[in-house]
């Protein structure tokens, strides 16, 4: 009765990529309906499928979920990647929101006004090495366990590792002084489901190129 989750978004990472990572890491097969024109988006809006007229939208278990965090929270809970109690969930949320804050800066970099791009990139690098990476390295150091929370893989590890890949795309040297983060990245990347997702041919989306950016701009104005 329940088919595979269906993801509605345009053909790029954007705000849907963390959902793709999470589903893939959880070993959940999913389908994608790619929005390729303003008309495609309008159709979804007119159908009433988008609560706030926005994507991402994921059809799952009879619901049309919108709002990235609502989608991620649902998937993480359903597939047991959200800790064992509300205290573990609070720690996971703290880490995930920090990842999201840095992730948001990186996400928006391509659409920064040209004159501001260099300054924004410098800020991202600075925050990565002075605020965010030290915070997560400290967590791993404090308990010496393989994963951020509860000695078990959770969404916090998956979102952080995804972020590490994006940081490395910007500047591979930024992770140099964070041995525990490097180890986490290696460990999570070698999990069978994640390893599969990292192979060519998976549903993982590449970095934004000019063509995809233009398409995104047309669709989302």
């Amino acid at each position, binding site marked *: 009765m329940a088919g595979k989750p269906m993801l509605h978004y345009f053909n790029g990472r954007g705000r849907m990529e963390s959902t793709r990572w999470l589903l893939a890491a959880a070993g959940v097969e999913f389908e994608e309906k790619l929005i390729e024109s303003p008309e495609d988006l309008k159709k979804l809006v007119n159908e009433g499928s988008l*609560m*706030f*007229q926005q994507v991402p939208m994921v059809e799952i*278990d009879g*619901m049309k*979920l*919108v*709002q*990235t*965090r*609502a989608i991620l*929270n*649902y998937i993480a*809970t*359903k597939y047991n990647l959200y800790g064992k109690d*509300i*205290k573990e*969930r*609070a*720690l996971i*949320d*703290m880490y*995930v*929101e*920090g990842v999201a*804050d840095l992730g948001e800066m990186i996400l928006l970099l391509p659409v920064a006004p040209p004159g501001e791009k260099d300054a924004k990139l410098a800020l991202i690098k600075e925050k990565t090495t002075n*605020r*965010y990476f030290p*915070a997560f390295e400290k967590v791993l150091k404090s308990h010496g366990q393989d994963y951020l929370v509860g000695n078990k893989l959770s969404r916090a590890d998956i979102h952080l590792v995804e972020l590490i890949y994006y940081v490395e795309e910007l500047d591979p040297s930024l992770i140099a002084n964070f041995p525990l983060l490097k180890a986490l990245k290696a460990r999570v990347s070698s999990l069978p489901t994640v390893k599969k997702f990292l192979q060519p041919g998976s549903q993982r989306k590449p970095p934004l190129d000019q063509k995809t950016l233009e398409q995104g701009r047309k669709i989302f104005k």
Partner: protein
Amino acid sequence: MAGKPKLYYFNGRGRMESIRWLLAAAGVEFEEELFETREEFEKLIQGGSLMYEQVPMVEIDGMNLVETRAILRYIAAKYDLYGRNLKEQAWIDMYVEGLKDLNDMIMLFPFSLPEEKKMSLDYILERATKRFFPVYEKALRDHGQDFLVGNRLSWADIQLLEVILMAEECKPSVLSGFPLLQEFKARVSHIPTINKFLQPGSQRKPPLDEESLETMKKTFNC
């Protein structure tokens, strides 16, 4: 052993106000440490209790929780305001995230430049009445119940009331096309814990005035 939750922020609404609302609605007494100067804020950072050197921070149940959503979700779950099952949680999350978008617009409005102000206000009101409020009016109309999710009070209702009141501060007649939201507002405002929070003398913070805005800018360097 567990004392009252303690909130660390400056003396204004900002990103802490939703947390104050949720605790108050849940009937939870809380303390606040409100800083007035940059030095006080920096002292807190030096103390090492801010994971990302940012506030809001709430000391609760032995944790120094930061990140607004992490704090709100913990409180909602702890005080049974987060639905009874995963699907209800998803609906609450969708509603709350939508409100946050609108909430952020209203919250950032005082920081917009003077020449941007009229445009920002028009934009906020347009979004409120065309994108956001219709969703909540429809939700209430579709199921005919008193609350947004699961026929009982949840975090979504509390957040909605908070945003309605903030929108009305921007434009008192903003709910004029939304009869069910008007009834909702009256009904939820009368819940005893919420009613108490709406009285003068509660820990609810007033809208940002010029003086508080300057203090906040100085404290947070923004």
